Each structure stands twice: as structure tokens, then as C-alpha cells.
């Protein structure tokens, strides 16, 4: 894991001091709320329906146990004893007091954490594959590249007032676990003649106009990366639309001028930027990479005792193969039936921190599906880990099943929402509470957004649900066929919307159609893609 040196720490400490001063000026009335807004937003502080919400950055979703415990401490001391893990691998606290915020940020800074650029029209937290460093299919660990980008993007003087927010994801596997092509910039590390470089995709995103990012460059070398990304951003900063907030994301620019013209403009800008000497030497990437060296794996391969049936189910559903023999990747579901997707109590956060320290080389990951990962667990320890998780009500064996729902906070918290998301997620999970039934349905990614901004990734759901406001009444539209994985696609609206109970019924009917029509080991998504919408429509509206 990356460790701050004095430079990194000085920058984060300076930010705490600066924000303390800004809050003081706001409290004293020296600056108006309108002037304060962009300042607090660049520190991840939103004014929501009921209180301030603070979003804390978890760079590329990686933490150690000390940092995880700090998240529990923050929840206990400054919030209501819980936190909400987000689709951007961050954590949000919903009940923050403005006057306590500077102390909160100072606490975070003691464990090399911050809330820098977790909101605002700037480059946001860099996200990555939650299995980085553990997945057998990766060409390299993507996190050193993400850290390089984190540093480059932190307080970037030219790109802090972009037309709109800007999200970058970095992966290094053919299997996409980070919805890479649904980001403003998606990077996939690849090898060409033995050399590591990045495939660059630009202009993806969800929101009201979902788009899949086209490839803009098949191979950017490591020592050109920052120049190239700087060129991508400069073209956007200069020519991205600023007349309409809904058309201001880079996906609209790339779409309007076309990928080819955007590529040409970036190439031209890159030829110039490359002469400026903004790329660090490769030694800097090597310095960062050394922090991500594989841990000292020393456990041998073992035969797992599957005699406890609950344990066996959890193994099959939530535990994934590790690149190192004798080890496994453990997924901790934050989706208990009837719970709030992504929420964890302080006590649960502490349990996960303890388990990471004891069994996972002190590492944890947050996933974009709002779950937690222990990336490096020796197989011989899996039973002990499972027992501890079960004790903390963290052993739901529903990874990637229909109750492993992504949901935005919705109208229960969010000032932008048109409809509630959480109760719909709870009702669907409860309807499908029977685990055997869920497992029979297999991988089925269901995602719920409470408004068109799509924070709940509904466009990328095998089944997506979008909450809208229809004449003052919450109404839910269903979409089928989306995917955020390597088979990326955007879901299509199937027909007229439903009320809250109606959408739960419609989802159930869709699963029945799937069960009837599926062939072989087809997933819901595969069957839908093969047979099309008609049989589903007929069952739901017929």
C-alpha cells in the first residue's frame, strides 16, 4: 500500500488548515453560502436534505486497517454511528455538522486520508479494480498508475473549474470489475512488446445521457501518461459545453465532435504538452510501484472442509480465486436482506478492519458495487474469517445475486433525488430473500437510481430501476440489458413505469420469464440479449 512521504503529508495538512480557515470565514459571515459552496464542494461537503453530507476519498478503494478504523471513529464521533460506502469506492457520512468538519478532516489526515476533490467540477477520486494485486488475470497492479494520477490531479491548477465533474478509472485485466468504460476517462493497462502502457477510453458516463467510452488511444506509454491525460483534459476544459449543465460532461463533447476529431485534437495538444516536461521520470512510477509489491505470501494450498453447508455456500458465492496458490479473495457483502445497500455500522467497520489486519496482510478494498473485499486471505483461515463475519452479520452469501443491489441514497437523503431508492432495494431483496432462489437465478445485477443522474448505475444494471417523479408521485421505470463489465452495454427502458410495489412485481415476473427461457448456463443478461424484450414485456404488461 502507498505510504505518504513528507510531501504528501504536507499537502494534506495544508488542506486541513485551509478548510479550517474557510469554515471560520463562513461561520463569521465573511463569505456568503454562494461563495462558500465551491470551497466546501472541493472538500466533499454537500448540503443535503437534512444535514451536511461529507464524502471521504478512498483512493482506488484501497485501505489498511488503521484507515478503516478511522472511518469507524469518524462515524462514532461525528455522525450517527454508521457510514455509507459508495459506487465510487468512497464513504459518505450523512449527518455532519459544519463546525466539526475541520476537526474531522484533521483526524483523517493523521491516517493519510482526506476529502479532497470528492465533489465539485474537478478530477474526482481515481477508482480501480477491487481485486488489484490479487486477480490472476491482471497484466500488472493498476494502483501505482492510479496513485500517479491521484497526485497529478490533486489541486491541478488548470483543471479545478472544469465544465463538469471528471471521473477516471484504471484497470489492468480483460475482465472489467470497475465499469471502466462508463467513466470520463477509462484506462486499461496492457502490454505491448513486453512494455506496459495504457489503452485510453474517453467520454463514457451514465447520468441522463449514458455513453460507452470509445477508445481514443490504443497504447500510451508510462512516461507519456500525464502529458496525454493533460492533453485530454485541456481539450475538454477549452471546448466542453458550459451553456447547459446537462450537456457539460466530456461524453457530450466527444459525441458531438466525434471520437475521431477528439482524438485528432488531443494528439495535436499532446504534441505540444509533451514538450513542457510535465511527466515525472519512470523512477517515480517505480517508487510508487514498490509500495504495491506483493505481500509475503507463505501459506500452502489446503483442502477446504466444506462440511458446514452455510460456509460452503458462502465460499461458492463470495470467495474468488487468488493468483497466489493457497490464497483467496473474500468479498464481504454489505447487502443484508432488508438493509441499506452499502451501509455499515462503526462496529462492523471495526470488525472488517480487525479481520484485514489479522488475515489479509492489513488490506481492504471498497468495490463499486458497495461491498468490501479482503484481498489476500489464506485459504486455511477462511473458516475463521467466515465465522467472525457471521458474528458481525456480514456473512450474506449474495455477491452478484439479485439482492446484491447497488442503490443511490435517493430521496431519503439526497437533495437531487426524485424518488426513494432504499425502500425499493429493501423490498426487492426481501421478496427474493430465499438464498436458494437467488442462487438459482444466478448472476443478476440489479441497480437502482432515485433520479436521472444515475448515481445508482441503473443504466449498467442487468435490471435497472430509475425513480422519477410523475405529477408528485414516485414512479419507477425498468430497464433491461445493461452491463458495466467487459461486455458493457446500456440498458433499455422496457415500457411504462410502475409504483413501488408494481416494480417489485415486475422484477419478479422478469425472473420467471428468464427461468422459463434460459438455455444452459445463461445468465439473465444473456437470455435477455438472445430473446429480446418481447417475452418479458408480454409477461409484465400482458
Amino acid at each position, binding site marked *: 500500500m502507498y505510504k505518504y*512521504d513528507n*510531501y*504528501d503529508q*504536507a*499537502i494534506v495538512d*495544508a488542506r486541513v*488548515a*485551509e478548510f479550517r*480557515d*474557510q469554515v471560520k*470565514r463562513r461561520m463569521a459571515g*465573511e463569505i456568503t453560502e454562494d*461563495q462558500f459552496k*465551491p*470551497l466546501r464542494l472541493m472538500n466533499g461537503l454537500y448540503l443535503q436534505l437534512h444535514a451536511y453530507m461529507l464524502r471521504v476519498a478512498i483512493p482506488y478503494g484501497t485501505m489498511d486497517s488503521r484507515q478503516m478504523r478511522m472511518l469507524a471513529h469518524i462515524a462514532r464521533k461525528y455522525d450517527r454511528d454508521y457510514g455509507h460506502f459508495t459506487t465510487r469506492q468512497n464513504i459518505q457520512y450523512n449527518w455532519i455538522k459544519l463546525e466539526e468538519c475541520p476537526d474531522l478532516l484533521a483526524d483523517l489526515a493523521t491516517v493519510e486520508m482526506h476529502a479532497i476533490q470528492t465533489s465539485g*467540477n474537478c478530477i474526482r477520486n481515481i477508482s480501480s479494480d477491487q481485486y488489484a494485486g490479487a486477480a490472476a488475470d491482471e497484466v500488472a497492479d493498476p494502483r501505482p498508475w492510479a496513485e500517479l494520477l491521484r*497526485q*497529478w490531479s*490533486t*489541486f*491541478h*491548477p*488548470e*483543471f*479545478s*473549474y*472544469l*465544465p463538469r465533474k471528471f471521473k477516471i478509472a484504471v484497470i489492468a485485466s480483460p475482465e472489467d470489475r470497475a465499469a471502466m468504460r462508463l467513466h470520463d476517462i477509462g484506462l486499461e493497462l496492457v502490454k505491448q512488446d513486453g512494455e506496459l502502457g495504457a489503452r485510453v477510453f474517453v467520454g463514457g458516463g451514465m447520468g441522463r445521457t449514458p455513453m460507452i467510452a470509445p477508445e481514443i488511444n490504443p497504447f500510451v506509454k508510462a512516461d507519456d501518461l500525464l502529458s496525454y491525460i493533460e492533453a485530454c483534459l*485541456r481539450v475538454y*476544459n*477549452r471546448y466542453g459545453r*458550459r451553456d447547459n449543465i446537462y450537456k457539460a460532461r466530456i461524453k457530450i463533447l466527444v459525441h458531438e465532435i466525434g471520437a475521431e476529431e477528439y482524438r485528432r485534437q488531443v494528439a495535436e495538444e499532446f504534441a*505540444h504538452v509533451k514538450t*513542457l*516536461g*510535465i511527466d*515525472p*521520470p519512470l*523512477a*517515480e512510477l517505480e*517508487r510508487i510501484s514498490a509500495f504495491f509489491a506483493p505481500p509475503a505470501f507463505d501459506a500452502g494450498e489446503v483442502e477446504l472442509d466444506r462440511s458446514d453447508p452455510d460456509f460452503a455456500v458462502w465460499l461458492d458465492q463470495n470467495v474468488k480465486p487468488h493468483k497466489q496458490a493457497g490464497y483467496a479473495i473474500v468479498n464481504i457483502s454489505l447487502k443484508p436482506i432488508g438493509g441499506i445497500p452499502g451501509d455499515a455500522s462503526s462496529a462492523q467497520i471495526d470488525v472488517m478492519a480487525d479481520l484485514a489486519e489479522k488475515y489479509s496482510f492489513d488490506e481492504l478494498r471498497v468495490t463499486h458495487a458497495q461491498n468490501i473485499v479482503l484481498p489476500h486471505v489464506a485459504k486455511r483461515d477462511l473458516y475463521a474469517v467466515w465465522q467472525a463475519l457471521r458474528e458481525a452479520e456480514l456473512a450474506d452469501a449474495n455477491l452478484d445475486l439479485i439482492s446484491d443491489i447497488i442503490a443511490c441514497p435517493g430521496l431519503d437523503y439526497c437533495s437531487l433525488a426524485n424518488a426513494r431508492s432504499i425502500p425499493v432495494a429493501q423490498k426487492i431483496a426481501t421478496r427474493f430473500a430465499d438464498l436458494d432462489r437467488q442462487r438459482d437465478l444466478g448472476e443478476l445485477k440489479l441497480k437502482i437510481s432515485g433520479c436521472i443522474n444515475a448515481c445508482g448505475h441503473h443504466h449498467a444494471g442487468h435490471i435497472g430501476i430509475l425513480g422519477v417523479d410523475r405529477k408528485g408521485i414516485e414512479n419507477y421505470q425498468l430497464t433491461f440489458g445493461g452491463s458495466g463489465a467487459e461486455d458493457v452495454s446500456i440498458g433499455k427502458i422496457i415500457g411504462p413505469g410502475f409504483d413501488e410495489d408494481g416494480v417489485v412485481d415486475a422484477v419478479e415476473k422478469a425472473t420467471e420469464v428468464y427461468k422459463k427461457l434460459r438455455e444452459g448456463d445463461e445468465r439473465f443478461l444473456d437470455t435477455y440479449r438472445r430473446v429480446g424484450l418481447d417475452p418479458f414485456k408480454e409477461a409484465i404488461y400482458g
Partner: protein
Amino acid sequence: MVEFRYRDDEVTEQPSVTLDAFLDQSNATAVRLEPDDDARALIPFLDRLTLIEVAFPKYRDGRGYSSARILREAGYTGELRAQGDVLVDQIAFMRRCGFDSFAPEGSLNPEAVERALSTYDQFYQKAADAAVPVWKLRHG
């Protein structure tokens, strides 16, 4: 009105003209760039210019930051002024992009500006100012 200036030379008295006017009649030495003007149109004339004023009609519109860097990267050494909706907490970014004078619409507290400019002494990126980026400090 110029409230903050970080240069020793004389203030240009000539009023600035629009980019279109400048490109039409070429003897002006001061130009004003709106957010949607292409700063690169000035590159052939930089050695003749003593003042380029970059307009910020709204603080949220960040195009002027790129204009400033493009001008400095092209070798412009004259006065580069940020004019308009310029806020205290933007001045440090603007200085890094090459601005060296500021004409904010609302008056700014000089003490607050001074504080904003001295908050950070380490920077991750190489930009248009003289700051040495952290990676260079790490690797020499």
C-alpha cells in the same frame, strides 16, 4: 481595477481591445480575451503585447486557466491579468497558471489573498509558475 499585481514593471495605460479588434488592427499592445476566445490566435503577436486581460464572467467558467497556460507556454512574458469574478480561493491556482495581476470585480481582502497564496508550499504538478513539482524534489 487592478488590486493585486505581482510584477515590477510599469502598468500599461492603453485600454485593452477585444481579440477580434486586435486581429483587425494590429497596433494595440493590450488585448482582452473572453472565455471562448482562442488564446492561440495571439501566439504570432506575443512579443508586441504588454498586457493580456483574461475575462472571468463567472468564477465557475475555468476556460481562462487554460488560456493563461497556453500563453505562458508560448513564451509570453508580459502582464497576464485575471479580470472579473475572481475569488480569493482561486488566486493560488491562477498564479500557478501564469496570471500575475488580478482585477476582481468584488474587492478582496489583501490579508486573505496573502494567506491563500502562502497556504501550500508543495505542488504535485509542473505548471506555469516556478514551483518545483514534488516528483522532481523526490528524484532530483
